[in-house]
């Protein structure tokens, strides 16, 4: 049953056709779709490298690829997944699409800058892809000196250039979001009526603005050292390789919060909608997002406990790292309290959100193990670390991304996806994910180091389990590709609010018109006024705190 029996009203998709209307668009919703296509392509490329890694690790011997090739595989897997998939994913797709809608604006503050950010992303991606197909890079996504600056024989400069350029895409997105959220809110949309999705992206944007430039300069310095054969990290002239690590991780630690904060924003939206209950502790969740952004900048040295950093600095960073776990914990408690006595339905977005809560908690708690200086001495550079961050990045951020894509799919495309297949895919992803990565905690505990393509016999059973899980996980990711594409043509037409959710984005058509709203909305009720009517009869501006 298609929607072509009667003509659709004008919306952002059918208002203009042709290449130029897409490639020269300034409509934030179209830019979001441009990003959606690009990051999906990178997701599968990064996944392909993961597949090769897991194939090699099926057997203890390094018999599938050579060691140098393996180094390139994990480097490129990391670079692509972090810089070209995870960091842009939720902000550039869902954030771009939804933030103006959620605040009642016609577009972002700077629509042309938005389009520019996509082009910068594509150009940076092209440089990196060129580096990959012309021989690859093998320094690890972390580019540690002096290997990257002096000894590596791979395409370091080309890759560094790609990452450097793409960083500006991130910076421009963050800049746009901050100005938009401050200056473009509809009348009545005060800060404490904003959806938590918006708070999350505001915090994320702060990190993008303050952190990414430092990554840019540290990568530029590597390029300079490679080109001129001398630089400030060069031990031969008294340079300190650890300085690179400081500058690199000053960004790259907050970068993980760039990846997870938007995901938490999505989860807040999903949990409240599918519990039919106002979110518990709205202001706690809002402030904890800001706290994570701020504290996240103070902990980077926990990546360098065994690199030669002074133990005193190590102690300081360890204590600060414990602190940053607190706001994340606050969020998890608030989500649980929202679920409690809620009227819960298990639609696919909710399955992803619930999966997030469990898997993010495991990932986060294992982060505390690693933040403990004495434990990290044993765990550093083992599979324990890999399992830890994949629980957060994949079990957390990617699941939230899929949850968000499903939740807002009707709004974005005007189509409903097939719910049965979506729930199945969510379950397959959950099972596949745990089978892939839980054994890696055990492997790390048993001492298997990361970035090795060969390993002792006794680790094989866990590695086989992990590879099996990875293939299931891959299938779990492929299924939505199929039915989501299917739904574009054959999915039922979506009403403006298929979930009966709260939020301004649901009060306009699916898909929305180009200027988002027929008239600028005026906001007078609290966010998330689900649940019993009497609970939502509050004075204007009053917020449910705890």
């Amino acid at each position, binding site marked *: 049953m298609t929607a072509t029996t009667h003509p659709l009203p004008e919306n952002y998709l059918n208002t203009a056709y042709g290449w130029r209307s897409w490639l020269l668009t300034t409509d934030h919703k179209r830019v979001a779709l441009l990003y959606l296509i690009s990051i999906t392509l990178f997701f599968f490329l990064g996944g392909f490298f993961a597949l090769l890694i897991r194939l090699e690790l099926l057997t203890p011997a390094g018999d599938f690829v050579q060691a140098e090739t393996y180094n390139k595989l994990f480097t490129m897997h990391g670079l692509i997944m972090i810089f070209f998939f995870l960091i842009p994913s939720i902000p550039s797709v869902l954030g771009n699409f939804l933030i103006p809608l959620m605040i009642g604006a016609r577009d972002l503050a700077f629509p042309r800058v938005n389009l520019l950010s996509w082009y910068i992303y594509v150009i940076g991606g092209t440089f990196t892809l060129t580096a990959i197909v012309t021989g690859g890079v093998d320094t690890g996504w972390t580019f540690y000196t002096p290997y990257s600056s002096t000894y590596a024989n791979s395409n370091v400069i080309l890759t560094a250039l790609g990452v450097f350029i793409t960083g500006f895409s991130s910076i421009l997105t963050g800049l746009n979001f901050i100005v938009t959220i401050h200056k473009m809110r509809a009348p009545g949309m005060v800060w404490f009526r904003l959806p938590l999705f918006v708070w999350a992206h505001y915090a994320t944007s702060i990190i993008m603005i303050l952190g990414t430039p430092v990554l840019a300069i540290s990568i530029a310095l590597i390029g300079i050292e490679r080109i001129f054969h001398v630089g400030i990290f060069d031990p031969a002239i008294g340079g300190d390789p650890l300085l690179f690590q400081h500058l690199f991780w000053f960004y790259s630690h907050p970068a993980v919060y760039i990846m997870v904060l938007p995901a938490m924003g999505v989860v807040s939206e999903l949990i409240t909608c599918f519990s039919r209950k106002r979110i518990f502790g709205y202001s706690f969740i809002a402030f904890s997002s800001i706290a994570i952004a701020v504290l996240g*900048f103070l902990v980077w040295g926990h990546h360098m406990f065994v690199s030669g950093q002074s133990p005193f600095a190590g102690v300081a960073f360890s204590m600060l790292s414990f602190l940053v776990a607190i706001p994340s914990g606050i969020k998890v408690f608030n989500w649980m309290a929202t679920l409690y006595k809620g009227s819960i339905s298990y639609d696919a977005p909710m399955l992803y959100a619930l999966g997030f809560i469990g898997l993010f908690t495991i990932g986060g708690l294992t982060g505390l193990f690693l933040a403990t200086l004495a434990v990290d001495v044993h765990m550093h550079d083992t599979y324990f670390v890999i399992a830890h961050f994949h629980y957060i990045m994949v079990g957390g951020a990617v699941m939230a991304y899929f949850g968000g894509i499903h939740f807002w799919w009707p709004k974005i495309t005007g189509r409903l996806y097939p719910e049965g297949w979506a729930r199945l895919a969510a379950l397959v992803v959950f099972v596949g994910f745990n089978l892939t990565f839980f054994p890696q905690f055990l492997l790390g505990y048993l001492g298997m180091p990361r970035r090795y393509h060969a390993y002792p016999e006794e680790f094989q059973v866990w590695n086989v389990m992990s590879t099996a899980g990875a293939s299931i996980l891959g299938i779990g990711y492929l299924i939505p590709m199929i039915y989501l594409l299917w739904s574009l043509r054959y999915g039922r037409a979506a009403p403006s609010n298929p979930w009966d959710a709260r939020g301004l984005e649901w009060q306009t058509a699916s898909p929305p018109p180009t200027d988002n709203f027929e008239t600028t909305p005026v906001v007078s009720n609290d966010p998330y006024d689900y649940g019993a009517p009497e609970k939502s009869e509050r004075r204007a501006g009053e917020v449910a705190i705890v």
Partner: protein
Amino acid sequence: MTHQADSTGRYLVTFLALMVLLALTVAASFIHLGRLNWLAALSVSTVKTLLIAYYFMHLRTTSRLTWMAAVAGCVMLVILTALILTDSWTRSWLS
């Protein structure tokens, strides 16, 4: 924010102050201050920056929100430098 133009005189006075500070910072470098040399230079540079930001860049008449953006960058820089120094200053303490 209002965009009534500042007076030419105000800009000229600011410029003269900047030139005086420039002379000051150059002169100070010839005095042996030892470990305080960097503090003197940093202080003068900071005052110059405040003058440029406040008058030339119109922070005087710009919203507090915009101030926050500038302040945030400076605070982050201090954090970056200070925490790196906690490593580099203490590295030899146990050896």
